[in-house]
């Protein structure tokens, strides 16, 4: 167990509909200020794993999560655990940018309001800070009251990141955040990831783009058909993978 581990999984296993084993024996550790990339071919369970970490899988009725997920050393995969606390501290950004049909301001202020912050000045501050952290403030500061759907795809995705940052999370999970975006937006998002990592946030990102994983991550985990085949520093994974299947995948033999 790593000394400064923020989030750790022990033998996590996920089944859908009792029969189907979507994930098996996943043991990974994530630390603050570190970007971990999860890679692997389609359907290997990357998203499933990501959704375990903030208990989003609980929303799927027929999904069973076994094993331990330790957050700050405490298992959160128990019935007693307050979901909402977990989710506020472990934010999530989805594949397709999905802002609410509200104004830009309200998109960000929504969750803080729901969590009891009513003071307008305080909300203004949270909105500004979050947008700055997502590197979106300069682009939208004059149109905060416009609909979020007036933004471009890349901007929407950064808005979603800002929305998550407004909760002040310690971990941010991202499920293929750039797959629907153009190169320039992708670049902007990657910069944002760099910035929040520098703030000490732990980022876990699923990506299909191997080059992106190489560019931005410190650690990389390779998944295949529900197993985590290899997990190591990105350096090692890309230059000197221990497993033949990892090598095959990275050289484009499949996927």
């Amino acid at each position, binding site marked *: 167990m790593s000394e400064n581990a923020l989030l750790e999984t022990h033998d996590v296993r996920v089944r859908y509909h009792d029969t189907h084993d979507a994930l098996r024996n996943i043991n990974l550790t994530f630390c603050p200020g570190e970007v971990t990339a999860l890679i692997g071919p389609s359907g290997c369970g990357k998203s499933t794993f990501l959704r375990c970490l903030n208990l989003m899988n609980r929303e799927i009725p027929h999904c069973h999560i076994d094993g331990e997920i330790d957050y700050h050393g405490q298992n959160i995969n128990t019935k007693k655990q307050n979901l909402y606390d977990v989710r506020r501290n472990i934010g999530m950004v989805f594949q397709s940018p999905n802002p609410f049909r509200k104004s830009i301001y309200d998109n960000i202020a929504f969750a803080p309001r729901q969590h*009891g912050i009513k003071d307008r000045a305080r909300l203004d501050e949270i909105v500004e800070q979050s947008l700055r952290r997502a590197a979106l403030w300069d682009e939208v500061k004059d149109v905060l009251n416009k609909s979020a759907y007036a933004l471009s795809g890349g901007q929407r995705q950064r808005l979603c990141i800002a929305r998550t940052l407004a909760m002040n999370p310690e971990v941010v999970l991202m499920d293929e955040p750039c797959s629907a975006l153009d190169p320039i937006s992708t670049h902007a998002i990657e910069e944002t990831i760099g910035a929040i990592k520098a703030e000490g946030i732990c980022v876990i990102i699923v990506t299909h783009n191997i080059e992106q994983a190489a560019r931005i991550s410190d650690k990389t985990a390779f998944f295949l058909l529900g197993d985590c085949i290899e997990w190591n520093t990105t350096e090692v994974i890309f230059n000197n993978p221990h497993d033949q299947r990892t090598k095959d995948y990275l050289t484009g033999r499949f996927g």
Partner: protein
Amino acid sequence: MTKSNGAETMKYSQRSIRHAQRNDKIATGVLTAIVAAIFVLLISLIVYIIASGANKAFDLQFLTSKPEQFKEGGGIGPELFNSFYLLVLTLLISLPLSLGAAIFLVEYAPDNEVTHAVKTAIEVLASLPSIVVGLFGFLLFVISFGWGFSILSGALALTIFNIPLLVRVIQQALESVPQSQRDAGLALGLSRWETTVHILLPCAMPAIITGVILSAGRVFGEAAALIYTAGQSAPALDFTNFNLSSYACPWNIWRPAETLAVHIWKINSEGVVPDLAAVSNGSAAVLMICVLLFNLLARWFGRHAERKLMSE
């Protein structure tokens, strides 16, 4: 940016989270209660309707004999037959028409103002009160065409009532066939018509069957559109009579035909038979059982067709 900021947020929120979670529980409770109420209502309604007419509804004599004018013990034989016959005729007319119209709207109609207007027109047709449809049928078929109160007039009125329902169902079924099936057909050099008939329709069939049977249920129970079109009298039927111009011939489409639903309405307003309550409860129960059967049938057919399509 430090976590201290977050700690402050936390303080605010512990209370509001508890609050939110309590609200969540209350809301769930209220919603559950509402659904339970509706369910209880539905079940008791059905049980009540069937129970109060059960002794008649399962009596073969009642189901086959003809109604009496002044005496007890009349049945609903002709009415029951008329209901089914009208339903079948209505489907025979409305199904091809709706199928054609829906195919045109989904596959051929250009995406423009005219198409939009046509779709709106069909919605208008769907929202017309059935009594207005019935009166139109009365004016056009019964009076202008001189067909009198007849099965044909009734079936056409029901067709007007049924078409918008069916068009909508078929339209949705066609639209929900994945675009990839359409592409596959077109890319093989087939015409849109062939693709639609041979590829899309079979895929949409389970949904169409379900929709048609469910709409049949509504047609079966419709009364307002029939009072002034198919009429309020049921000549006694003779199933050995195949003279298509005779009123006793069941298949004659020029004869008046009171249906079960109209019968319930009529005897409750005009009836003089002593066992009026029993007859009307019995008829209601029969009607209800038929509608239940339609529902079960729709579900069974839909599932069966689906399975048949997915794997042999």
